[in-house]
């Protein structure tokens, strides 16, 4: 074993390692951006940069601060959950320029059909149409008719423009159904009192009175006359009285409560009673509901009773 080992051969190696370390530290300082590693393996300043952008969609509460009238109408109808900016576009520029930058007002059917085109993947309880079929059913001849001719996008259940202004309920189709003739009928409520017409009895007094004495009197008028779950046409009156509609309440099931309406098995019940295949519940059980209105056999147009 040599007594005095020489380390001269390693000086160069250690000098190189040292130099390498110095270069690494310098290069790292140059390449790694400031604030890198403060909160993790990333540039902490990037978080603040991601935050810094300004929101462009302001929300309908902001819209309502200026467009009060539209907001009040919009809030009352089925489109209440639809943001203004869904149809009109993001509002930041409009607000920043104090209204000088105008927002879009889509009038074509395309923007309505983005939601309301009938698709097999859409939930069946959602209002959706096939345009051609809808036009055929409601008797629209001109295929180029736009949705907004009948439906206001802000309150789509009010069908007619004059109706929207008079605040009548959507199931009556025309003002002149009540306000017929040249002379004003003094017995009719004045337009200022129109919200009272939301009480069905104002126009349909005899039916409402008759209904109150019968079995279904706890059921609200609009339960049957506004909403049909299985139909594409939410808002349409139940004229065809589809048995499936009655069965929504009267079908027996394990989840029925004690005070539930009497349950039937369909079509077993019909077969037992010897009914025809197209027999409807209402054909036998009309007496449980209310008088058959005189207009039931007429085409859908006017309410039968005009006098309160």
């Amino acid at each position, binding site marked *: 074993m040599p007594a005095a*080992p020489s*380390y001269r051969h*390693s000086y160069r190696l*250690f000098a190189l*390692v040292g130099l390498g370390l110095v270069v690494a530290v310098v290069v790292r300082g140059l390449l790694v*951006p400031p604030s*890198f*590693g*403060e*909160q*993790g*393996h*990333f*540039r902490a300043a*990037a*978080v603040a*940069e*991601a*935050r*810094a*952008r*300004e*929101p*462009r*969609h302001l*929300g309908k509460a902001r819209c309502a601060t200026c467009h009060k009238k539209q907001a009040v109408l919009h809030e009352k109808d089925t*489109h209440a*959950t*639809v*943001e203004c*900016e*869904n149809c009109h*576009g*993001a509002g930041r520029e409009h607000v920043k320029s104090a209204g000088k930058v105008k927002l879009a007002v889509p009038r074509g059917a*395309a*923007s309505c*059909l*983005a*939601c309301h*085109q*009938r*698709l*097999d*993947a*859409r*939930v069946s309880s*959602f209002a*959706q149409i*096939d345009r051609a079929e809808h036009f055929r059913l409601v008797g629209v001849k001109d295929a180029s008719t736009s949705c907004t001719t009948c439906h206001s996008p802000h309150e789509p259940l009010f069908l007619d423009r004059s109706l929207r202004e008079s605040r009548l309920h959507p199931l009556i189709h025309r003002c002149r159904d009540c306000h017929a003739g040249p002379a004003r009928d003094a017995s009719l409520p004045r337009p200022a009192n129109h919200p009272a017409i939301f009480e069905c009895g104002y126009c349909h007094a005899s039916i409402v009175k008759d209904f109150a004495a019968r079995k279904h009197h706890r059921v609200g008028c609009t339960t049957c006359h506004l909403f049909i779950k299985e139909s594409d046409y939410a808002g349409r009156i139940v004229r065809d009285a589809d048995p499936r509609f009655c069965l929504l309440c009267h079908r027996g099931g394990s989840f029925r409560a004690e005070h539930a309406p009497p349950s039937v098995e369909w079509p077993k019940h019909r077969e037992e009673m010897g009914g025809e295949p197209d027999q409807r519940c209402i054909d036998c059980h009309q007496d449980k509901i209310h008088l058959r209105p005189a207009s039931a056999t007429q085409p859908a147009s006017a309410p039968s009773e005009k006098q309160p």
Partner: protein
Amino acid sequence: MSEQRGGGGCGPMDRRQVLRMIAGGGGLLLVGCYPRGKGPEAAEHYWGYAVDTTRCIGCCACMRACRAENDVPRGSYRTWVERYRIAADGEVSVDVALDDDHVFAPVSTPSVKALFVPKLCNHCEKSVCSQVCPVGATYRTADGVVLVDHKHCVGCGYCVQACPYGTRFINPVDHTADKCTLCYHRITRGLQPACVQACPKQARIFGDLKDPRSSINTILRQRRYRLLRPDLGTHPKCYYIGLDREVV
């Protein structure tokens, strides 16, 4: 000589000792350089997202809102809505409304079942994308959002390939990786993400997982949910209600 001093007076070092010393020093250096950041527990919020597929009507208002809010270039999507159609023979077809207005067209072929599934970045707790990023340009914030540092990203696209949910893309304008930010500029101001605000059926729910009374915690207590590809161990924070076997 340093190695003599380092040897602690035990005489001359052999090669093994020198190597050991170098390895030890290097290890100490590594430990010293390791970034010690704040963990998720340091933040006030921990954001989560839920999608109720039973409510989605496929109107794609979310896609339009996202594009307008975040300047998403045409042809790229930070969120999108998939339409699953299942035929009588069990064949599943999936399509997305990729036209400019994002409007689903009716399909004539019959289906026995059809549903919409909105998709977006899952903001995974164990995000793959941020692990593979070679420059640390993709990261998880303390409040649980996976973001991209666009100034630092080199656009290599590793994260695009790594994401098992296909939610990332290379932005054709600035050529960096791009993805859903949960509208970080909105949620940090107390607003909802643009897609959540735009959804007319409340099919998209956003909220604070740390707040027991938040809407997202309420819905996760009340409803049964699934995750997308839970087998991958990414721990996604996007909870799906009413998800079908065909989708997971």
